[in-house]
């Protein structure tokens, strides 16, 4: 479905999937805010003064050459990598900091644990638990982390696995699945924790080309359901155009250009983006 056209013709918001407003430009409190965030590995600064808001439910696609810092940006949100400078705010609360006696200090594990409950991530290499069946991969989070009963966790997992088209693989072990199936299990495993923002880090890059489609379809389906914000790091330009409310182009640790997909893909402003996109056109 082409949302842009609908918006144009109807002169109002598309009924099926509304375009989310662009982060900071509205009064809505962003679900994620990066303020002057930088990240260095040793002496090498890989992200420089990043400022970025993601609105609740907004689907943001991150594109850019490899090595530009997209993964690092997502990993800092998932608390896998600590920012070297600046501040990340999730749902109105600092992620890596907390208030203590009126001052902002480095977050402790309890704070990080509470914040992490709002964030989810799907990895390029799936990272499924190989010693657990598909079903247990998905029930273990709700059971061990959310404290949900076994029956309830089972029910939620079955529903979620059905949604990603793996209702018939409950008792199978990950090693018996194709890459596309593994990634769909990983998506179900992350979704069942009901995060408010989910990072998808090049989730199709490790897949055989013929398996990419099934995974992207599942993500599109989830995106169309709405409330969860998504940070979609991807090299699939058609997918980014279809799913994203906003596309961000980054290079060498800077956000170079951002805007609605039609603008980014049809009318790129910067030379860098133009040359980047020309590599995806045949």
């Amino acid at each position, binding site marked *: 479905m082409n949302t842009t056209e609908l918006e144009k013709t109807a002169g109002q918001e598309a009924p099926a999937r509304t375009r989310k407003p662009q982060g900071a430009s509205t009064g809505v409190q962003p679900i994620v805010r990066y303020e002057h965030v930088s990240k260095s590995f040793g002496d090498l600064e890989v992200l420089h003064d990043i400022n970025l808001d993601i609105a609740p439910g907004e689907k943001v696609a991150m594109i850019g050459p490899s090595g530009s810092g997209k993964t690092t940006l997502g990993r800092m949100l*998932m*608390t*896998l990598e600590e920012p070297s400078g600046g501040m990340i705010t999730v749902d109105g609360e600092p992620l890596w900091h907390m208030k203590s006696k009126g001052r902002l200090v480095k977050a402790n*594990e309890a704070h990080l*644990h509470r914040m*992490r*409950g709002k*964030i*989810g*991530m799907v*990895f390029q*290499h*799936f*990272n*499924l*638990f*190989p*010693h657990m069946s598909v079903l247990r991969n998905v029930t*273990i*989070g709700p059971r*061990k*982390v959310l404290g949900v009963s076994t029956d309830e966790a089972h029910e939620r997992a079955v529903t979620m696995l059905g949604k990603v088209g793996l209702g018939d693989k409950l008792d199978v*072990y*990950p*090693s*018996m699945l194709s890459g596309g199936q*593994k990634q769909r299990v*990983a998506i179900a*495993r*992350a979704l069942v*924790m009901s995060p408010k923002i989910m990072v998808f880090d090049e989730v199709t890059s*490790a897949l055989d080309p013929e398996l990419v489609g099934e995974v992207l379809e599942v993500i599109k389906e989830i995106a169309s359901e709405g409330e969860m914000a998504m940070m979609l790091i991807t090299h699939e330009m058609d997918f980014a155009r279809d799913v994203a409310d906003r596309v961000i182009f980054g290079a060498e640790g800077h956000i170079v250009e951002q805007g609605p997909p039609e603008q980014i893909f049809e009318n790129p402003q910067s030379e860098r983006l133009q040359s980047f996109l020309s590599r995806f056109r045949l």
Partner: protein
Amino acid sequence: MWNWDYAWSILPDLIAALKTTFWATFGGFIFAAIGGLMLALLGRSPIWIIRAINRLIIEFIRSTPLLVQLFFLYFYILPTMFPTAPTALVSGIIGLGLHYSTYMSEVYRSGIDAVPKGQWEAAKALNFPRSKTWTSIILPQALPPTLPVMGNYLIVIFKETPLLSAITLVEVLTTAKNAISVSYRPFEAYTLVGVIFLIISYMFSLLVRMMEIRLNREQSASSGTDSPSKPQSGGKARLNKEVKQQA
């Protein structure tokens, strides 16, 4: 010259003494397995002081002879620590257990290191607390590959039990010595001790080999074509090498 009649006459006593040897072996092994796991986990503590102390304990125990440790424990530390001094068997189990826990901790460590980093990250992304990450995700993957190496340590500990004769434990070697002190015939007695150890060690090692084969089969079934979790095989090779150095 070898005297069959004499050999047969002392064999029942030697075999009876095996019971004590087995107690010492399994007791020491279980102590070492649990102690080793604790040392391995302490070695992963986020608090550096704990890691440093852990390192120090391991280095200290490893670089002093087991025999000296046994003497020290049996004749000095344990009697001063407890109102009634523990028996030679209990002291021996503690001594063997402590000593080998430092080696086992290295085995666990290699097993833990072989779990891919992505597993930790997935656990974090699902918001697993640290303790549950260990119990549900990391250890269930880290421990099975260490089983054959653990089995080899069981054999090593078994072969070390004659040392306990030095702290008066009446195990197989002490029983042989006692027989010799009466008959003055060391040849049969020591030969039998050697043969008994040979047969039992060999049987143990066959069991370990079988376990290893089964594990390899399970492993290749469960890792399949899953590239990200491949490092496991490398970790296992490392594990095996480690025991060889020790055994």
